[in-house]
């Protein structure tokens, strides 16, 4: 790029970096921003569920009581037995002091997913007044790894992650002054500043960006690269059973058989593991092959600082005869260097090994990655606005316009949709009709809002589109606390007096993003004014020459 003599190799890498990154940039920005927010999925979910507090303060359920836990399992079974006696899968999460509901997830015989939440005491479906139907912060996590589109989404994200690796490698190759540029930033120099911003954000965080892209692929290694698994095993399930040293799932027999008392099996499982259970699973209930699995409580605090997490414990039963099939002691270490490596990469990617310090570090590094990506996409157009390169002949202006429109919608449009999602959470009525439920509405409206920003970007001249969307984003950020106060009566003061640091942190972070957007807006305005006076003085000079 800035080198004087260009070898053909470097030229090829420069083209690969420019065009590959242009195509990948929009999607990668989405993956990076939602992933960075997703690091805080738990505090965001907490902010988005203000009704939880009322259940927590009134419930009799005690997560530390074995009797209560066993009773909750019974309530889950009673409900599932009624709605889906012959489903493909039942899964339940027991209440805790963060989320007090008995959370149910099940698949019907055709493997369509369903979910419900039960009150921990009554076992009845939680009324809308106690449960704001929402995906909470998980929405950002799902955007990040599968774009809310299942396996296809996982593949799309994987493909762009691969392009990210290619862009990082080709970027390093073309960037000869990598160490010098470590310390170079020329502010207020137009194109040069965008290049410096792109280089500085990329170079400073290069190790993190390489790590996060590689470990992201490693998390889904069996999805992305199943060749060897299929060559050596009959099915991926057989492979996982051998890796985890757990019994392989049983084939369905299609002989009807009732599921036995899960509460009693759960108590036996807790005794066998010597610790509380947290999740339960029944595979093909109603079939004589049904199995019941209890997973032990995951204690994140006790595991801090560890990259290879030991087992939280699990016990598996024949769900019909109540016979124990398998026990995995809590604390059991994953075996094998390769498997341990893959587990460590998973933990590294999930940022859950060092509490809030590590989460904040990941958030900042991830957002810096997003800045690297966005500044690269913007630089592409800044360069070409100075001097069109006519790469597409007659179609060049149309292609440039498309890049501009997509840049605005992917960058400022996504930011608007993300903070807008929190507005939707507060403004959407608690009870809404529709098969997808309220949580589905929230996500649907997130996409609708994003689509509107694309439309806006397509209809407005590019500079106005940037300014208006940045202003919109700043307004949404800075007014969110008022919306929160008016709709559910919570605000920073209540958060701080209640020592609700997580909710306070969410709001303060959003306010600082709003202030940053205002600052950027001010810069854009000044630049626009400077350009205007420049063209004006040129015009006056020309008029003077003519006159």
């Amino acid at each position, binding site marked *: 790029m800035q080198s004087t003599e260009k070898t053909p190799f470097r030229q090829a890498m420069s083209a*690969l970096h420019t065009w590959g990154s242009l195509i990948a940039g929009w999607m990668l920005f989405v993956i990076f921003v939602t992933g960075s927010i997703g690091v805080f999925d738990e505090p965001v979910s907490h902010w988005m569920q203000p009704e939880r507090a009322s259940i927590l303060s009134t419930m009799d359920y005690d997560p530390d009581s074995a009797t209560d836990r066993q009773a909750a399992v019974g309530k889950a079974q009673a409900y599932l037995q009624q709605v889906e006696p012959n489903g493909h899968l039942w899964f339940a999460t027991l209440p805790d002091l963060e989320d007090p509901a008995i959370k149910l997830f099940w698949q019907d015989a055709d493997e369509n997913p369903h979910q419900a939440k039960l009150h921990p005491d009554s076992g009845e479906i939680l009324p809308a007044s106690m449960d704001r139907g929402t995906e909470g912060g998980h929405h950002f996590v799902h955007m990040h790894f599968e774009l809310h589109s299942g396996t296809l989404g996982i593949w799309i994200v994987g493909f762009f992650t691969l392009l990210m690796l*290619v862009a990082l490698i080709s970027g390093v190759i073309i960037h000869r002054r990598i160490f010098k540029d470590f310390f170079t930033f020329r502010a207020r120099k137009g194109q040069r500043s965008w290049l410096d911003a792109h280089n500085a954000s990329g170079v400073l965080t290069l190790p993190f960006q390489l790590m996060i892209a590689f470990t992201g692929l490693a998390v889904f*290694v069996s999805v992305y*690269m199943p060749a060897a*698994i299929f060559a050596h095993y009959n099915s991926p399930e057989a492979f996982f059973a051998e890796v985890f040293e757990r019994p392989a799932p049983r084939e369905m027999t299609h002989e009807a058989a009732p599921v036995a008392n899960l509460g009693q099996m759960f108590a036996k499982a807790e005794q066998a593991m010597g610790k509380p259970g947290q999740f339960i699973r029944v595979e093909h209930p109603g079939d004589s092959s049904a199995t019941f699995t209890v997973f032990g409580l995951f204690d994140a605090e006790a595991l801090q600082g560890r990259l290879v997490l030991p087992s939280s414990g699990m016990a598996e039963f024949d769900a019909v005869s109540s016979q124990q099939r398998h026990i995995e002691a809590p604390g059991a270490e994953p075996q*094998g*260097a390769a498997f341990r490596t893959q587990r460590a990469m998973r933990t590294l990617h999930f940022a859950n090994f060092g509490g809030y310090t590590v989460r904040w570090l990941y958030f900042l590094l991830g957002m810096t990655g997003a800045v690297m990506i966005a500044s690269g996409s913007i630089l592409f157009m800044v360069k070409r606005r100075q001097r069109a390169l006519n790469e597409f002949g007659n179609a060049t202006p149309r292609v440039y316009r498309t890049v501009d429109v997509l840049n605005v919608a992917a960058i400022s449009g996504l930011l608007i949709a993300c903070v807008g999602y929190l507005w939707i959470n507060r403004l959407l009525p608690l009870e809404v009709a529709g098969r997808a439920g309220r949580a589905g509405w929230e996500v649907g409206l997130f996409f609708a809002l994003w689509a509107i920003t694309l439309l806006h970007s397509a209809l407005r001249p590019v500079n106005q589109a940037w300014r208006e969307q940045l202003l919109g984003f700043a307004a949404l950020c800075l007014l969110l606390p008022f919306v929160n106060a008016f709709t559910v009566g919570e605000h920073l003061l209540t958060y701080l007096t209640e020592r609700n640091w997580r909710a306070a942190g969410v709001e303060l972070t959003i306010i600082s993003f709003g202030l940053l957007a205002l600052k950027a807006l001010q810069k854009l305005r000044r630049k626009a004014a400077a350009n205007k006076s420049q063209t004006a003085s040129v015009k006056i000079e020309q008029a003077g020459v003519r006159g």
Partner: protein
Amino acid sequence: MTSKPLAISLQALAAILGGYLLASASTLFLSAILPLSKTEAVITASLFSFVVYPIAIIWVYARQDVKRAWLGMVVPSVILIAIAWLLSKGLS
């Protein structure tokens, strides 16, 4: 002589599809020859494919010759898969 859009597409396909083929072939080959337990060999070989794949893409673009790029992806892939297949037949 091919047109420019066609050449660009063929090169991109050599990188993306050819690269994935080579990455898969290297995974099959490594999982067959690594002197580790079966699960360990499979995991090691599969993780290593994420190193092979980006390098293959970089190589395709460094060549700037579509025919050679395709050959460079397909020929080693065929050889690697053939060896892996022979080894699995010989051992079972």
